[in-house]
């Protein structure tokens, strides 16, 4: 009797538990549902108060409009050119900051020197500063370098402020790598780059993925630098999306806005779904240092 009671209360507890978990799933998925559903219906259905309903008439027109013909800022180009800007910006910035981070991590763990920890601390602090602190001098500097308002300028900025985190990842990863192997290779006459290339790099796959995903997500999602250092024709996707949504002229095409928002979210969402494990590892390493 007692055990039957315990069992039913146990089942009740499990039921409550799963219900709660499901409710929170709905909470997190609701905005995504709203975006997807409303990007596929005509504007009239949204303005008639049907935001939560499935489309009565399914249409792909908002997507086409957001991609190639919607008014972004002053021109009716759609988001396509800005999506391309973001890609052109993100690829070199990620590659450069990851490569430099790997070399830095290698030096800071296997060729360490007095003051290396302090140097690393100073480097890390640079990751956390409010970037408002560097906006004014960076605007000047980009002007001096002839990179003002250009995609290469944004690549440079993201590279510079991406080094801190990529160094953090590789440093913590290489710290756990057996130093004896490096010393043995040194005795065998292998040089600095050879050891890096032959011994450390081949086993760096996981952390490279973590680092690339982190940098990609951060740089793709950046808004502050994009808004500060780009011109009309070099804006990244986030800035263009914001312009699309905030533009005050004409009717507010909510369905087009939602389609645009999904476009801006797709690359990072895709990476998250394909390689979520690495994304979470990156998040954790960026906060709880391991």
């Amino acid at each position, binding site marked *: 009797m007692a055990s039957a009671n315990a069992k039913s209360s146990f089942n009740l507890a499990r039921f409550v538990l799963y219900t709660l978990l499901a409710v929170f799933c709905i909470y997190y998925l609701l905005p995504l549902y709203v975006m997807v559903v409303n990007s596929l219906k005509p504007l009239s259905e949204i303005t008639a108060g049907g*935001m939560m309903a499935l489309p009565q008439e399914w249409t792909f027109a908002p997507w086409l409009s957001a991609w190639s013909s919607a008014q972004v800022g002053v021109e009716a180009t759609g988001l396509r050119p800005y999506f391309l800007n973001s890609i052109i910006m993100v690829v070199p910035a990620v590659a450069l900051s990851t490569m430099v981070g790997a070399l830095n991590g290698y030096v800071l763990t296997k060729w360490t020197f007095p003051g290396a920890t302090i140097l690393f601390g100073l480097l890390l602090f640079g990751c956390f500063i409010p970037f408002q602190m560097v906006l004014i001098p960076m605007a000047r500097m980009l002007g001096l370098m002839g990179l003002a308002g250009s995609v290469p300028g944004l690549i440079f900025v993201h590279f510079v402020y991406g080094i801190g985190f990529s160094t953090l990842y590789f440093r913590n990863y290489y710290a756990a790598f057996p130093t004896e192997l490096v010393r043995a290779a040194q005795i065998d006459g292998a040089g600095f780059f050879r050891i890096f290339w032959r011994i450390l790099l081949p086993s760096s796959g996981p952390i490279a993925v973590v680092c690339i995903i982190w940098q990609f997500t951060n740089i793709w999602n950046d808004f502050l630098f994009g808004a*500060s250092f780009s011109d009309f024709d070099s804006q990244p996707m986030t800035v263009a999306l914001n312009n699309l949504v905030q533009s005050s002229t004409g009717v507010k095409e*909510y369905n087009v806005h939602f389609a645009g*928002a999904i476009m801006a979210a797709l690359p990072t969402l895709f990476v998250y779904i394909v390689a979520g494990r690495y*994304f979470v590892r990156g998040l954790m390493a960026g906060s709880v240092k391991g």
Partner: protein
Amino acid sequence: MSISEAANPRGSVVDRLRDALPKIVLSPTVAIVAIFVYGFILFTLYLSFTDSRILPTFGWVGWKNYENLFRIRAWDTAVTNLVIFGVLYIVICCALGLLLAILLDQRIRAEGFIRTVYLYPMALSFIVTGVAWKWFLDPGIGVEAVVRGWGWTTFEFNWIKDSDMAIYTIVIAAVWQTSGFVMAMFLAGLRGIDSEMMKAAQIDGASTFALYRRIVIPQLRPAFMSAFVVLAHMAIKSYDLVIALTGGGPGTATELPATFMYSYTFTRNQMGIGAASAVIMLMTIAAIIVPYLWSELREKK
């Protein structure tokens, strides 16, 4: 090394170069950080004591920008908003994150899937989050219109248009985006707790609630610390979400220091005051981050 140097003096230059190679490899980073982080910090710090308006100028005005800054109503609003937003954001994220982590730690079927769902907003840009919530909370088409459409015609939910309540919509959207991340941090902490100790307490007849309150939660202290530092620094830097969700409005109702700095520097041409506000943001973040980094890096040794 010393043997080869003695035997072959011509090789010594090469050898020394080889010894210096690690530092040579590191030097571009050192130069970049020295200029683009610390040099720029000093530059902005200097500007905050000058009469800069549209462009940097170098007429020294002492503390005048700081005195003016604290007299500006919009700055006062921004700081008050940051306190409201920051406290609610951190407390709610931690509470929700802890609750979700504990729920998920009960040997749940499909845990991986649920975790993925809770955490995906973290992969989105704050601009995307802002756009989604902007229209979802909009009284004309969002929640209010939908509930009215269901027959409750007097239902009201117009916080985003209400200057007294708009700041809370920022909290709602920000919590939605980050709470899953806090959950992941706590979950990692929970998984690191010694299960023997929990079993012993269970055998002693401790209830599940007491078990968590007395044994589990105290052990999550490091996770709480990390969550606090990450959330606090994100709160202070919050910019994108405000821009996308409310644009700082209605009026200046949802202005935060980050948006204040931007508008004073780049649209109102008060660069000196903008720089002063950036310095205060940096000081606040440094007060949180420096002790944290210090303790993290010292433990490592």
